């Protein structure tokens, strides 16, 4: 569960607020699109949810952690409970596809046996089993993003945060990426996807949170066209 209570964020004393009295609640198992123009506060919201920064005022809860009070030493453990997907993929270039996915499991101190079972499973899920030995530079943008999705899902986190995951790939592949995230959501994982692409949002529908000038401008469900 994700919950923000009366959250304000400003970067410098007396500066314009990046987030202004934001109240949000996202229940377990939801799929939510977060939209908004540049400067609306999307990046700040993501930084709060990944505990890259703390709110100036208010409280932030993610997966049972109170991020407003979370000590630095506990941040790694918290981050293991979420999966991150980035616009620029952020794969480790000198590791193979298999190793990139396995890496997150090593970080969480999983056994070698578990890693040997889990990695092929998630690579199969994103249809990249045949690319397991390839390096990121040998893959297309869409394939790299699928690896990133596999990595985010590998540790079976309760929440996946996708920061413009379709921003660096061909438009026709964007739908495939969202489909994959929808499939993961069906397994019970909460998915929070930040995007600029309104066509995509309209196509898939569901819960949409729109930010404008640091505040929640719209938070409701819309119907989609994907059946």
């Amino acid at each position, binding site marked *: 569960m994700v919950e923000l209570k009366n959250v304000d964020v400003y970067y410098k004393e007396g500066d314009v607020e990046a987030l202004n009295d934001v109240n949000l609640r996202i229940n377990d198992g939801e799929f939510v699109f977060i939209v908004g123009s540049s400067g609306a506060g999307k990046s700040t919201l993501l930084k709060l949810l990944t505990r890259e920064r703390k709110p100036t005022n208010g409280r932030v809860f993610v997966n049972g952690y109170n991020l407003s009070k979370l000590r630095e030493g506990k941040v790694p453990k918290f*981050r293991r*409970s979420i999966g*991150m997907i980035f616009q620029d993929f*952020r794969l480790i270039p*000198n590791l193979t596809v298999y190793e990139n996915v396995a890496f*997150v499991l*090593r970080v969480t*101190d999983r056994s070698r046996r578990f890693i040997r079972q889990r990695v092929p499973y998630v690579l199969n899920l994103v249809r990249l089993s045949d690319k397991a030995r390839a390096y990121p530079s040998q893959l297309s943008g869409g394939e790299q993003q699928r690896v990133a999705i596999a990595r985010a899902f590998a540790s079976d986190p309760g929440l996946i945060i996708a920061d413009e995951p379709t921003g660096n790939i061909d438009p026709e592949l964007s739908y495939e990426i969202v489909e994959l995230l929808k499939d993961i959501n069906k397994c019970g994982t909460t998915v929070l996807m930040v995007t600029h692409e309104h066509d995509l949002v309209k196509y898939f529908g569901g819960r949409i949170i729109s930010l404008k000038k640091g505040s929640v401008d719209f938070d409701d469900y819309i119907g989609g066209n994907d059946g």
Partner: protein
Amino acid sequence: MRSSNFSYLVKQGVVSVWHNRIMSFASFCILMVSLLLIGLAVLISLDISIVIGNIEDKNEILVFVDGDVPDSELSYITEILQSYNNEFVDRVVFRPKEEAWQMARDNPIYRDVKALFDAVGENPMPSTFVVTLWDITRINEAADIFRAIEGVEEIYAPYDFAEILITIRNTFSMIGIAILSALVVVCLVIIYNTARSSVFARRMQINIMKHVGATNAFIRIPFFIEGMFIGILAGAASWALTRVAYNSVVSVFTEDITILQIFGLANVIVFDDIMWLALAANCFAGAMLGAIGTIMSMGKHLKV
């Protein structure tokens, strides 16, 4: 942490040396040159201390005994002189008046005036104690004490020589410490910056690790191993270079018999005698410098 994951991190550290080979090579070269310079500076300053020590050994105080005191009653003077062993006296050698006379007669300086020795007839030389000091800085104090001993007629102490030696030793010590300190600081700055460039080139990798929940320790281990591995290689290479460079310098000096006699270079450090100790020291210093340099330069990138 599971042993399998730890061994994975160690392997990653070693593999990273090859993956980041350009920066690894730069770090290797910087570390190697740094260790070579520091190693040579240490050896040379130790050698200078040894050479000065050798010259100091040639420094003697002559304690002339009153001619009226028979040789058989001189043991108490020996005891008094030797009682200062812990303070400044290294060794005491008694030279009877007959030996002193014979030495004077045999001295090649007087070979043209040998007839004078025959003319003198009776031996005019006093019995002498030749006292070598291990702490030359206390020569004035020693001379005053020896002069006050009953039965001692006169003292000869090479005050000027001692003063020059002390000045030379102090100057060399200060220069040695200054050069060594400057070298260590310069090397640390260069190593730190090289490591920082190496880490900066992989800041994205560190950022990814932080986002997937890696602890700082988990992120540091491969970098630590990598820095250490490069450091050990650089330590071994610098050891080989130090050996060649040092032996060449020493051989130039030891081949010259005159220098050898004046400075007692025969006693300088023989590299092959301390070969394994030097190798261990070089590798240890390299490993520490490499690892610490890398770890120190990571701090900023870990704050995500």
